[in-house]
């Protein structure tokens, strides 16, 4: 026996010849790269993950087996041959992959980055949503530690942070405002999303500039097999997608994707607008949103690819009130434009280089006008703008089979026009454009030790320069993981993040009355230090994964909008006037998550217990108070059942949030002005965020049915209910006065809770042409 083992050992040793296997993992049908796919050596159990371009590089011996897997695709196993130093692997899409939840669990277990959640277009569409509109941002609300700001906002809070502390990237380009329709839906077209990743625990050094989280959205490049078109008709808007090769002969050479989305409420309301303009005594309201986004990929050869991507979207809201002789109009318009151009080179099997140039703009305009009987026209137009130009270069270096290094630099020129006013009356002098230059250098590495330990680390250096101040900050990042044989791991992460540009907002709605300003001599960069310690267990019977972690975040130099100041009525002023500075904050919490599967029935659930508090010298008398985004308990339970190879699916989603804190008046007092008792009573707000809205909970149901039409085209119908048991979740508290008719003075002050979204049925029809 000993001889046999000895012989086997010798023969294996003789046969073992380590080579480096590299290449791209691609979608066989679409021809697109598959990012974050797992490449695992079944003999050594070492694994690597593809980068954004689907590139991987792994060490293996001839004769060893490599398995390639990704969510939504069938696994593929190859045996390494001598010639296999550079291979492209094409994975087949799986209409329903029985082991999908296992792959998802595995990805989350040994993913390239700790604490990252990723979703693709199909997963996003599986989650029931308001009006049946699949929404990238709202899909991430199922992630532990991620909470909605409120029901009608597309902003989200990650581990107690503010929505403005989330960095939102579209193909590597910053998107400043992610709201359509006041936040009811976000501005990412779900048909075009190839992959969306949310980082909340460990932040690779290439990301920075925000103090809470990073959402990285990548658009589809278009499939290389044939032209595909898709039409979706929903309750609010309709979408159109076209993608495919640009050249019929050489299909892999150049591909494109283009998505259009538009609401159609404006068509229904057009007659009322004409009526309001021509006749008297009518009121008119209109809303229109649209966006266009797309991407082009051009392959110069196997190793050089050019990607061009863009997004352009706008929202228009208009209302007219009064009569023809005394008409007042209110118009709001906001939107984003982004463009990115990226060249990806595979310089050698070990070095992958990217260069990117991008621009992003965000603007909003508020126009208020009055037209009186004598035909005098008065009013004002307030606008705000942000323009960024960014140049970026970074390289992946696959140094050894267990060491991967990424390093790069980027330069960004920010131009902010916080607010400028044009008015028919005299105003203060307009705000000047503020220019800030940001230079970043970063290095990060991933190193595996003995298959049992893995360390991710990095350092990011940021120089941020304005006319008045230059800031230099270093941001260390580290993640340490210990794997055990029982498919479990412990991890610890530490991250420092700085935020040099700040959003000033007087409300928590998705209204575009937001202003972005850079750090300067007065406003210090916001800083966040986060510690995260966790445990993940895989494959415990039907439990495909179990996760448990605790985190602690410390914020410094926080900014907060000054209490009681209306941004809308002070837009011509310098934004520095509106902010309280040098605030402190902390957030801590415990997150539990699980994936459970029985046959085609998948469950996922999470529970977060957390706290988020702040302190400012001039707010709440310097006492600590719960932040607006404090949610002690957040629970999300989702169940998904699929039949007929995924042609039918049924999803239910239940969410529960503790009520968020708000400030309410507790008393009414006499006011006093210039030696006299005031005429009107005054509401006494004694403490900041002294009241918590009632707990929020909601059940959403959706049923998806895919079928082939008579003309062999795929169609999909999605029907469902949002807020199925019609829970009236309070959104705000409103002050109402009850007047005494005799004395015409306020007799009683009452507070009322308002809710806006009852049970809402939805239907969405998609046809693939």
């Amino acid at each position, binding site marked *: 026996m000993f001889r046999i083992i000895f012989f086997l050992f010798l023969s294996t040793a003789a046969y073992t010849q380590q080579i480096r296997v590299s290449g791209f993992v691609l979608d066989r049908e679409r021809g697109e790269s598959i990012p974050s796919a797992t490449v695992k050596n079944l003999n050594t159990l070492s694994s690597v993950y593809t980068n954004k371009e689907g590139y991987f590089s792994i060490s293996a011996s001839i004769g060893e087996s490599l398995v390639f897997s990704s969510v939504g695709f069938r696994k593929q196993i190859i045996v390494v041959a001598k010639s296999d130093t550079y291979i492209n692997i094409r994975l087949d899409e799986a209409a329903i992959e029985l082991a999908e939840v296992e792959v998802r669990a595995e990805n989350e277990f040994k993913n390239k980055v700790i604490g990252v959640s990723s979703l693709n277009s199909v997963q996003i569409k599986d989650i029931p949503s308001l009006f049946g509109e699949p929404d990238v941002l709202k899909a991430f609300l199922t992630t532990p530690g991620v909470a909605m700001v409120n029901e009608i906002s597309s902003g989200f809070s990650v581990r107690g942070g503010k929505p403005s502390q989330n960095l939102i990237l579209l193909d590597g380009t910053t998107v400043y405002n992610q709201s359509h329709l006041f936040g009811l839906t976000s501005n990412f077209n779900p048909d075009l999303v190839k992959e969306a990743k949310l980082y909340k625990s460990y932040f690779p050094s290439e990301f920075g500039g925000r103090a809470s989280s990073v959402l990285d959205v990548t658009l589809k490049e278009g499939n290389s097999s044939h032209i595909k078109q898709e039409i979706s008709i929903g309750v609010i808007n309709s979408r159109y997608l076209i993608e495919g090769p640009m050249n019929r002969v050489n299909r892999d050479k150049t591909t494109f994707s283009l998505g259009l989305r538009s609401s159609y409420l404006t068509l229904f309301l057009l007659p009322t607008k004409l009526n309001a303009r021509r006749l008297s005594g009518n009121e008119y309201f209109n809303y229109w949103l649209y966006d266009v986004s797309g991407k082009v990929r051009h392959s110069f050869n196997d190793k050089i690819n050019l990607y061009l991507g863009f997004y352009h979207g706008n929202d228009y809201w208009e209302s007219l009130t009064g009569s023809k002789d005394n008409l007042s109009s209110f118009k709001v318009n906001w939107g984003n434009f982004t463009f990115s151009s990226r060249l990806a080179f595979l310089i050698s099997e070990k070095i992958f280089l990217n260069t990117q140039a991008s621009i992003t703009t965000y603007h909003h305009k508020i126009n208020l006008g009055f037209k009186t009987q004598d035909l005098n026209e008065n009013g004002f137009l307030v606008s705000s703008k942000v323009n960024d130009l960014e140049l970026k270069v970074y390289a992946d270096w696959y140094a050894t089979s267990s060491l991967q290094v990424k390093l790069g630099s980027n330069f960004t020129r920010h131009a902010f026009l916080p607010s400028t006013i044009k008015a028919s009356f005299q105003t203060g002098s307009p705000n000047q454009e503020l220019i800030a230059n940001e230079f970043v250098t970063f290095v990060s590495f991933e190193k595996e030790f003995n298959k049992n330990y893995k360390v991710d680390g990095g350092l990011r250096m940021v120089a941020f320069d304005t006319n008045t101040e230059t800031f230099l900050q270093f941001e260390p990042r580290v993640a340490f993981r210990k794997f055990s044989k029982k498919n479990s791991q412990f991890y610890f992460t530490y991250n420092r993040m700085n935020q040099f540009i700040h959003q000033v907002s007087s409300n928590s709605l998705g209204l575009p009355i937001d202003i972005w300003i850079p750090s300067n001599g007065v406003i210090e960069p916001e800083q966040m230090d986060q510690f995260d310690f966790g445990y993940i267990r895989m494959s415990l019977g039907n439990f495909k994964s179990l996760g448990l972690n605790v985190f602690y975040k410390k914020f410094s130099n926080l900014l907060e909008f000054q209490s009681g100041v209306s941004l809308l009525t002070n837009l011509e002023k310098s934004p520095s006037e509106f902010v309280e500075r040098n605030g402190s904050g902390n957030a801590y919490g415990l997150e539990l998550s699980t994936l459970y599967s029985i046959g085609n029935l998948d469950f996922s659930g999470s529970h977060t217990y957390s706290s988020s508090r702040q302190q400012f010298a001039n707010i709440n008398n310097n006492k600590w108070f719960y932040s607006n985004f404090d949610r002690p308990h957040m629970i999300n339970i989702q169940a998904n059942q699929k039949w007929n190879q995924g042609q039918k699916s049924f999803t239910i989603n239940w969410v529960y949030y503790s009520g968020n804190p708000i400030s309410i008046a507790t008393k009414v007092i006499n006011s006093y002005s210039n030696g006299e008792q005031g005429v009107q009573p005054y509401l006494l707000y004694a403490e900041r965020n002294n009241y918590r809205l009632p707990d929020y909970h909601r059940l959403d149901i959706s049923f998806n049915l895919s079928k082939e039409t008579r003309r062999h085209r795929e169609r999909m119908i999605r029907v469902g209910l949002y807020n199925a048991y019609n829970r009236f979740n309070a959104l705000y508290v409103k002050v109402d006065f009850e007047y005494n008719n005799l004395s015409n003075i306020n007799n009683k*002050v009452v507070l009322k809770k308002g809710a806006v979204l009852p049970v809402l049925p939805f239907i969405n029809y998609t046809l693939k042409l």
Partner: protein
Amino acid sequence: MKVTILISLICILYCSCERKFEVDLPFSADELILYAELPINGRIKAFLSKSSAIDVQIDFELDYTKYTIVLFGDDGVIDTLNYEENGFYYSEKIQFSSTNEYSLKVFNELEGLVLETQSISPLPLLEDVLIKETTKVVQGLNPQYETKAFSIEVADPKSQLDYYSVQITGVSEGIESIVGFFVIGKDSEVRSDCGFALPSSYYFTDKCKLNNSLLWEFGVELATYNAQLQKVVKPEIITITFNNIDKYWYDYYATISAPNFIENAFLVPKVFTSNFKQGRGVWAASNSQIQSFLVK
């Protein structure tokens, strides 16, 4: 049928879904509210009332026979304020020293000390204040109303003050009403415009410079509301009351003029701050300069 379903869905979506229901408020006991002014020279004026709960009939009334307000200085009791009417108490005429500190205490005959302010010092009287009408053309927001321009200049080198207020009243047919009220503070002086108006139904354009001296130019719409006539009329006399105030008054005015609930229900309200050791209210220093102008 499909069209009917589509139209029904759209109707469901775009009708107002807002529903209101009552807030379960935590119990909050009534508390005493005191506003009191400390001049450099003259009588202290104090206004005592109580808070009223939300959701019940507003009631600010107190049994004033049970409350006594006492003025304290560095060396102990200076005066006991006399109750006059409608919650107002007054001290004797006193010459206060700007180097001393003064506080007020409110006693209830049953409970004893119920309210105590912090100690503050009076502000020195400004000597070199010039309030005048100017010929500067002011473009008003509402062209229906004529406007007039005024300036206030404080060149007093002694003045190291940071906060001022201006009240403008108009008299029409013998009835006085407030045209507007401004507060200006060093914290708000960032650019040329540095005041805010109250009540908000009247509009002003104002410019000011606030360094070691103050130059404040502003326009006033000649419009006051005559309650008897129930319409807006042009005033015959404009009276401008200029006050140098301390930070406590400034913070108070900034608080009560904050649109805590005007813009939308999501606005973060301003928390009421008191410079009291016990109880709630404002005890602050101010001095006035008054100038009247006939409107032609």
